[in-house]
């Protein structure tokens, strides 16, 4: 029987709309949130160049897509507003001069306009996916960001690309002008390349997590308060990854054997570097701050930690936790503690990176290791092709993890899960397996961690299967 999908979708939507007056939305709450946001937006201390177009998240405006209105060549220089009078109980708010819009500034640099395209063009198919960890940031604090180079879908005609191992670049715009950032999460200190092989299941580019300092960048002409905390208001995160198409869908064997480096392969391809853009992401800065919060990355911990050679097998001692090897930690939710037969358990949590530097590692999905009387009787992780993904995390950066699964015996591998555990009471140990972790610091470069798997164990909890 052929279903009329259009009719079914409209009926589905109509039933949802009919069952929920006003969508179940609370106008009072919405009005309050909006009023607070509008108040913050009004509290500007010196930025509102006439004619500059804001970059909206809902309608990306870059080369190859919709074009924003061009900025007049005589965009007025931003002038600080007069210092506000200080009531006795309120500190004086110092005006902050932001970089003026410069039509000649290259894409993504300080003072560049949102309408300025990348010099060599925009990637036709490759994209950057990016976001912020919080939509609202207190003034003076850095912005948590993440970014990842993403191919647009399965397609045998897609070329492999070279890209900077330091990952995407991030810039912060206000009213269509770059006012902060403009570099990668390594601060421009790392210049090696990596290759995205397209068809290597699950092993694309890493997800890069870190922070962008929300301080005024230097346009080079003395017009801005360089280093000052950005004032309260609405901003936009712009992310992009330089990519170079290699003219092939397969990477040469010499790359995998180590005979040729990524840099040599990219140079030999003669490729042009273009920008894989991300959708702009809006966020807000709230409050005031005299100075930016300084973030101390801490010391790199000892890399001499125990490892496990493979995912937990049944019959061995249960993992001890919570544990924090390499300074990593895992915190998880405590889900429902009673499951019906055939019911899945859903656990979400946060893996927080260790201190000292940027951490690169591979990891599969969150593993729920199950024990009885201190002995492993099951695990939800199923070894299979494409089960690993790469992370590149700043010191102390959080990364969301989770698992939704039946509690099963240990998998025998080959993509085949174990069998559901029988009724009984079990102890569940959330575990993140970190594969071949490395840490990079500006002074020391890359230090390799232990070979094999380092297990970060979260707080155990009991579950009863009925």
């Amino acid at each position: 029987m052929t279903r009329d999908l259009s009719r079914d979708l409209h009926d589905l939507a109509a039933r949802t709309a009919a069952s929920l007056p006003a969508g179940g939305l609370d106008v009072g709450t919405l009005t309050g949130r909006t009023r607070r946001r509008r108040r913050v937006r009004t509290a500007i201390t010196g930025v509102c160049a006439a004619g500059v177009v804001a970059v909206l998240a809902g309608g990306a405006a870059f080369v190859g897509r919709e074009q924003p209105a061009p900025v007049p060549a005589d965009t007025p220089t931003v002038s600080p507003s007069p210092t506000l009078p200080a009531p006795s109980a309120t500190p004086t708010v110092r005006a902050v001069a932001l970089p003026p819009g410069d039509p000649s500034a290259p894409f993504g640099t300080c003072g560049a306009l949102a309408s300025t395209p990348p010099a060599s063009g925009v990637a036709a198919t490759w994209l950057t996916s990016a976001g912020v960890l919080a939509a609202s940031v207190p003034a003076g604090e850095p912005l948590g960001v993440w970014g990842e180079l993403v191919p647009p879908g399965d397609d045998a005609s897609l070329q492999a690309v070279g890209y900077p191992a330091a990952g995407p670049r991030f810039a912060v715009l206000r009213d269509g002008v770059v006012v902060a950032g403009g570099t990668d999460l390594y601060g421009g200190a790392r210049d090696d390349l990596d290759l995205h092989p397209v068809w290597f299941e699950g092993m694309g580019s890493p997800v890069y997590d870190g922070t962008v300092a929300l301080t005024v960048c230097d346009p080079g002409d003395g017009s801005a308060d360089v280093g000052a905390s950005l004032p309260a208001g609405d901003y936009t995160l712009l992310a992009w990854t330089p990519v170079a198409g290699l003219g092939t869908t397969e990477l040469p064997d010499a790359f995998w054997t180590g005979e040729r480096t990524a840099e040599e392969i990219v140079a030999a391809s003669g490729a042009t570097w273009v920008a894989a853009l991300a959708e702009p992401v809006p966020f807000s800065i709230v409050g005031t701050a005299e100075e930016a919060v300084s973030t101390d990355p801490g010391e790199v911990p000892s890399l001499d930690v125990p490892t496990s050679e493979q995912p937990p097998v049944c019959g061995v001692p249960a993992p001890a936790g919570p544990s924090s090897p390499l300074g990593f930690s895992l915190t998880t939710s405590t889900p429902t503690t009673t499951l019906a037969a055939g019911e899945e358990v859903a656990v979400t949590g946060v893996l927080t990176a260790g201190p000292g530097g940027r951490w690169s590692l591979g990891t599969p999905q969150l593993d729920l290791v199950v024990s009885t009387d201190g002995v492993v009787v099951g695990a939800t992780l199923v070894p299979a092709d494409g089960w690993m993904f790469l992370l590149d995390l700043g010191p102390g950066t959080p990364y969301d993890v989770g698992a939704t699964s039946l509690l099963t015996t240990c998998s025998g591998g080959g993509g085949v899960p174990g069998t559901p555990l029988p009724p009984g009471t079990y102890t569940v140990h959330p575990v993140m397996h970190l594969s071949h972790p490395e840490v990079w610091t500006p002074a020391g470069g890359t230090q390799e961690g232990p070979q094999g798997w380092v297990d970060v164990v979260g707080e155990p909890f009991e579950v009863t299967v009925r």
Partner: protein
Amino acid sequence: MTWEDELGRVVAERGGALVAYARLLTGDLHAAQDLVQDALVNAFTRRRTRPVDEVEAYVRRAILNAYLDGWRRRRRLDQVVHLVATQTHASDETSAVGDRADVAAALDALSPRERACVVLRFYDDLTLPEIAHRLGVSDGAVKRYLSDARRRLEPLLGPQPDLLDDVPTIAKGARR
């Protein structure tokens, strides 16, 4: 009319339709309401008041972008959830045919981008190039997503020959 009045009017008149649209994408009512609320706050934070139709169009685009952005952030989690959902539906397919409610269940079998393409194609009646523009991908990528969606939906809903057929642009602005 003040912006507060406009916001109240949009919620009263279009809140149900907006949440319904977001729910087609997310499959979850609470997630849909969160998307709509965030989009409305963003829309009305900007000072210039706009006609209700324009606000709705902006909010619908913001919902789509926020949904896809949320998926990109949780992509590794969704790989696990998606696999589980597919297995569940495979076992239910013999009882699903004929029940319109199974369309909602069938949508759960799609990846977020496949789902977005299906909603934009069959609910928003966009052409393939329009879908590509809305998602910021190539026309070819949209065809791939719809092709993959057809492979997943047909065992559950029967043949879907229209999934890859392009359609002429229809009159915009029709409310549903």
